[in-house]
């Protein structure tokens, strides 16, 4: 069983080649309370903070292929720019996107890679929900989206 050019059924991750007429470059999006104010909001015990937009730049499409968030005790739920949730409910960050030895924000550690990734249109938004299942107030930690920007070399439009 195999698939065509841009699709791989198994890891290793990121073994993808650019499609014709495009150039892909590594790109990271990093969000914390300095650029997304809501990520500095304290979330009370049992409370949720929903639909926090994480804006993407408008110059190129983003192939979202990895994710990283610091350990915080919160549960997290992501939504792609098309409104698709990536889990049925908020799930513990420690099991979902907290990379090894990364107990203090986003220091060290690779991202958690995803299979084929998600094509995000230029200028789109990724959304994040937080839920606090603990008995005390918690503040979200930084979030990193990792992947590639896809630049068009010439028409027709790449997708």
């Amino acid at each position, binding site marked *: *069983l*195999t*698939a*065509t050019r*841009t*699709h791989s*059924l*198994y890891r290793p991750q990121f073994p993808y080649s650019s499609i014709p007429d495009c150039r892909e470059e590594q790109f990271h999006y990093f969000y914390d309370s300095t650029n997304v104010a809501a990520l500095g909001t304290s979330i009370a015990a049992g409370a949720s903070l929903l639909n926090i937009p994480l804006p993407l730049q408008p110059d190129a499409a983003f*192939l979202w292929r990895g994710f990283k968030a610091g*350990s915080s*005790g919160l*549960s997290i739920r992501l939504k*792609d720019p098309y409104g*698709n949730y*990536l*889990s*049925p*409910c*908020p*799930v*513990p960050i*420690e*099991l*979902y*996107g*907290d*990379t*090894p*030895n990364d107990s203090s924000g986003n220091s060290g*550690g*690779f*991202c*958690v*890679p*995803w*299979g*084929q*990734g*998600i*094509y995000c249109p230029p200028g789109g938004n990724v959304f994040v929900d937080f*839920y606090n*299942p603990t008995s005390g107030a918690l503040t979200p930690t930084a979030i990193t989206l990792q992947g590639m920007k896809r630049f068009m070399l010439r028409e027709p439009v790449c997708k």
Partner: protein
Amino acid sequence: MTGQVTGRPRPQFRERHFDYAMRPSEYPQLLSIAAGQRLTVPFTFDTDAPFILRSRAMRVPYAVECMVNGPDPIRTMDLQHLRLRFSDATTEFKAQDTIRQLSQMAYFGNWGLPLPVYPGIFFPAGSTMQVDLYNDGTEPITNLTLYWRGVKLFPWGQRFDFTYPPKFATLPYSYTIATPTQANPTGGLLNLPASATLTNQVFQLQDDADFVIRSGQAGIPSGAVFEIFFQFYDSDKYPYSNYPIHADVLFGNQTQENIFEYDGSGEAAAPYLGGPLNPGLFYPEIYLPKSHLMYYDVVRSDGSISCASTVTYPLLLTGAKVFPQ
């Protein structure tokens, strides 16, 4: 992202993920291996299908003490002096002598990090493997469980042959083991008592897309759950393991405290290799059509720990939704 299946001759057999646990309850020789003791234990594989050994792991139960803040696992050197070698089905051993397992693998294959066996070793249905064990330490090794992980081989059509549609799109996705509800907002195993055996639990897909299970993560950051085992089944109750498999072996949880001392100094490195970056893998991946279901059993046996409490236990099955196009 999109993909398209292209034609290629399929292999002779369909591989199916399978784990064998070699437990002291069935192999009483593993209950206690005395200091200096050598022994050979034969292990017989199931008779329904051949097996290819692809990786292995081992563990002993947690020893837990109750501290002010709750249960805390005690570091152990029990496995540090375990030496082992194993044979193929013709009793040809794969090492000339027993090998110290500490030097073979990280965390003895726990936290979803089994030691690969490559190339895989083929065992015919019903064949027997010889396992040589040697404790070269000064303390007994008690309640040892060995895990032999790999794939069973089935003729095409004997088991479910669900697979990708000819053309499809995928979405990275993580299912929770239970369907989230208002009372269970994170979809964990709700109110799991310290001592429990839950059988025939249902894991059901949503009705919008097929799902392919590629990995899993499970556990509570505080490490409040210790002896917890899972056995998964297809919808016809055919299992993915011969017995329930410990969550540390199946899934990994980077926040679980490492209990294995590595040099006798009392130090134990955190299991930084495990976690969602390197989750416990299902190989080959398990493909389920939309609305399909699997069954699973859960066994938690922390009843002997006086401070163990009822918890909501999270378990994520991660992979991709598959949308036909």
